[in-house]
């Protein structure tokens, strides 16, 4: 198991967002986290990425407890994420956005950058080349010098994933990646994720409402409902599960 959530509880003030939840993600798996709004999915993401510390329980990544670590340390351990509402660096070019992912991988110091030491130049060249490769992979290299915010929504989503991949993660967390996309875009995105899983050796954990997308993509899903787990298993089984239908899907979907 690459990621193990062990009996995690999170309280905000008096409200319990997540209650004694446990699940595990196997290497190279695409794992879906679904459930109604406010069910604690994004909270779970924030716990894994270190933005929140769990009130109790442990987050174990590659056999190491990572809860309590600072978010930027967790990224360095190999967990990257995207955001529900795309959050690119607005004033920066597409290339610079991806280069940020290499921030902790560029091996030169502050003084070296001020004095423009040779190592600065070789390292900058190296990470720029790597960034262009990643952009190329997503077919975005021709936009490298455009401002990220000038791109279309779908392109921005790709840049965001490219940026996350630049941190060289083993586990990629995607927060509603298909939100705001039409079905054909969604399908394309699904293909990219599947392909990237192989090419970048990834494990993917994603939150999504689009059940079709989840069905197409995920190996396994976990359905959360206001802090507690109501289902864990194959996505095809989830949409048949009466409890999932009652709490989450409703009957509208089945028409």
């Amino acid at each position, binding site marked *: 198991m690459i990621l193990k959530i062990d009996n995690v509880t999170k309280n905000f003030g008096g409200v319990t967002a997540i209650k004694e939840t446990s699940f595990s993600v196997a290497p190279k798996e695409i794992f879906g986290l679904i459930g109604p709004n406010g069910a604690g999915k*994004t909270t779970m*993401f*924030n716990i894994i990425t270190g*933005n929140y510390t769990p009130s109790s329980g442990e987050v174990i990544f590659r056999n190491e407890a990572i809860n309590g670590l600072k978010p930027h340390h967790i990224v360095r351990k190999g967990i990257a994420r995207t*955001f*529900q509402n795309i959050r690119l660096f607005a004033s920066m070019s597409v290339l610079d956005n991806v280069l940020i992912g290499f921030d902790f991988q560029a091996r030169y110091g502050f003084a070296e950058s001020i004095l423009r030491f040779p190592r600065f130049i070789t390292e900058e060249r190296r990470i720029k080349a790597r960034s262009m490769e990643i952009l190329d992979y997503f077919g975005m290299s021709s936009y490298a010098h455009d401002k990220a915010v000038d791109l279309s929504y779908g392109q921005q989503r790709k840049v965001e994933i490219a940026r996350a991949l630049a941190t060289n993660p083993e586990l990629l967390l995607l927060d509603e990646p298909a939100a705001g996309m039409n079905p054909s875009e969604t399908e394309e995105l699904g293909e990219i994720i599947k392909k990237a899983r192989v090419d970048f050796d990834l494990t993917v954990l994603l939150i999504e409402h689009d059940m079709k997308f989840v069905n197409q993509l995920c190996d396994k899903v976990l359905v959360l409902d206001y802090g507690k787990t109501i289902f864990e298993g194959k996505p095809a089984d989830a949409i048949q599960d009466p409890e999932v239908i009652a709490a989450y899907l409703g009957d509208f979907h089945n028409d």
Partner: protein
Amino acid sequence: MFMQQMVNGFSLGSMYALIAIGYTMVYGVLRLINFAHGDIMMVGGFLGYFGIAVLDLPFGAAVLLAIVGSALLGMASDRVAYRPLRSAPKISLLITAIGVSFFLENAFNVFFGGVPKAFPVPAYLENVIDFMGLTMPVSAILVPIITAFLLAIILWVLYKTKYGMAIRALAFDVGTVNLMGIDANRIITLVFGMGSALAAVGGIFWAVNYPSVEPMMGVLVGLKAFAAAVVGGIGSVGGAVLGGLIIGFTEVVVIAFFPELGGYKDAFAFIFLILILLFKPTGILGIDFEKSRF
């Protein structure tokens, strides 16, 4: 001795509170540190002075003149200098506020001179009352009473009228307020008017207690009142009053018992501010405006 200092602190704190309310309300709707607010208070003091010394008005009429004049000035400053910048970066708005502040200070300096003018205080406000060993002038007692009265009005407006609800709604979302069929700009201008009217009352109190007016009188008071608003929790009217009282008390009481710290008096507001923000980054009663949701 201690009680005397408490009364003194309460009186000074009330004046900070009056000015802090204006800061906190404007911050609430625009996220703007209105650096010109202290200068609006100065204008209030000057208008009171002109009313009494030049126009020969009775004190009450002069106060009314100051309140109306300052409110109009505050609304005009919003209309002319801030409204065109509603969609601009916050920093442009802030620099504009500094510009308005500089303008008021310098214009008053050029046209009315920098020499402090003695403020003609009505004799009945200067009478000294002796109450259970505490001595204080009528004005010092009047300040907290009127502050409390004005605070009650402000709270009533904010929580019981639809305009107040709109002001509170603005604090979270300007665009959506327009969707309610409300002219958000008018509400914001109204907030400037209310805050400026309070500042004018603060300015008159200031001028009565320390009977003089001069163009730079609002600078330090303004900054301290802003610090008070932040200590109390910016965006919260109750917080502004609380913050004003805390800083007023600290300045008076600390000096009274640790006179050797006198040289640091002006720094208290800021030391307090830093300490509070370290432990409660949104101030005592504050709401987290900067909160980012993941």
